[in-house]
């Protein structure tokens, strides 16, 4: 403002000087003349208005930015970030659930496999034991029967052998009777026994 006042006075003086012409148009002429002498970007007579308008427009810009635009863009970016983070953590949670489900499935799978193995083992053992038992029973039965048969064969054999000397004595007696006419049974038997001993 301090710079503006003398400038305004100068401009006013210029207006007064040309005011004899009485036309408002003359003021712009005066300004134009001034501009050709002073390089416009350094012209102090324009500083006042430029500063005022710069202050007004920049203040409006600053408040529009700080109160409206930037908080809005910031909240948009924040929302997006939180949304993306939320989605990412949800995806992470889902992945962990999947991993847990896979682990649970694999544990169940391993348990089922182990169980099936043990069931198969038990069944196999049971069948084996059963077969063994039956085979032992059959074998015992068979060997008993063999022993019985052997015993009966032995008995028959002994019995048969017991009759041999008697048959031989009878035969001898019959032969001797045919040959000599008489023979006692005791003599025949003794003879057979003696023959059998030789």
């Amino acid at each position, binding site marked *: 403002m301090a710079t503006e006042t003398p400038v*305004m006075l100068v401009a*006013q003086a210029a*207006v007064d000087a040309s005011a004899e012409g009485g036309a*408002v148009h003359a*003021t*712009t002429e005066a*300004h*134009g003349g001034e*501009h*050709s002498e002073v*390089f*416009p*970007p*350094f*012209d102090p007579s*324009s*500083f*006042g*208005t*430029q*500063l*005022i*308008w*710069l*202050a007004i*427009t*920049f203040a*409006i*810009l*600053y408040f*529009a*930015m*700080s109160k*409206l*635009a*930037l908080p*809005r*863009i*910031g*909240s*948009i*970016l924040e*929302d*997006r970030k939180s*949304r993306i983070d939320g989605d990412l953590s949800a995806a992470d949670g889902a992945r962990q659930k999947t991993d847990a489900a896979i682990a649970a499935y694999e544990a169940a799978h391993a348990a089922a496999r182990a169980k099936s193995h043990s069931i198969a083992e038990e069944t196999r053992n049971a069948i084996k034991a059963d077969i063994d038992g039956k085979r032992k029973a059959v074998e015992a039965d068979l060997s008993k029967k063999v022993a019985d048969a052997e015993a009966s064969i032995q008995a028959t054999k002994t019995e048969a052998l017991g009759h041999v000397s008697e048959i031989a004595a009878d035969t001898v007696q019959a032969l001797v009777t045919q040959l000599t006419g008489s023979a006692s049974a005791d003599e025949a038997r003794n003879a057979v026994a003696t023959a059998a001993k030789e």
Partner: protein
Amino acid sequence: MADPNKVDPIHQFGLTNIFSLGGEGGFAFTNSALFMVLTVGLIVIFLLGSTAGRRLVPGRAQVVSELLYDFVANMVKGAAGSEGMKFFPFVFSLFMFVLMANMFGMIPFFFTTTSHIIVPAALAILVFVVVIGYGLYRNGFKFFKLFVPAGVPGYVLPIVVPIEVVSFLSRPISLSVRLFANILAGHITLKVFAGFIYSLGSLGVLGFLGASLPLIMTVAITALEFLVAALQAYVFAVLTSMYINDAIHPSH
């Protein structure tokens, strides 16, 4: 001005009164003021309009707004830390204002607000008022540690401290002159080369051929000026962030 055939590269910087508030002697609404209003209006309308939907999956315009936000936010956070984010709206406003004003200046017949020294100077002074004000408010007397670098032996301090003070005081000047000079020089160069096209082109067939050289230059400089327009806005914002960092952490 008087002679339309004469090329005057300075004419583009002239202020014209559009109307005066409160009559003659009230403050004038010039073409400069018009473009300040347009700059701010476009920024506000674009940023608010593009984000009105608050869409989770943004459209093109919303992406642009979000990119601008992220760009400046990362710049401020990178230079001044998370405490510097207090000044994010300020730096963002500066960046958008300078960027849009420069970009408006690239449109033919449009006035470039930043080509007048007073506008960048006012913004730079505003930055330094903020930096010094916040630095003193936050750190009190310790803010002046800014001028006393840590680890410097005591007998060098009489030399170092004045240098630091001068460098600090020259910052607003360099900040404003850098922006202003780049824009002003670029626009003058552009206009001068464009003027060559016109002057050479009116000389006949040979001149017509010769005029193609400044034409190529003008096209190239236009591309360069777009780069400068964006770059100067970026530089202005980055330096502001760094100065704010000085206010927050004065002992460097």
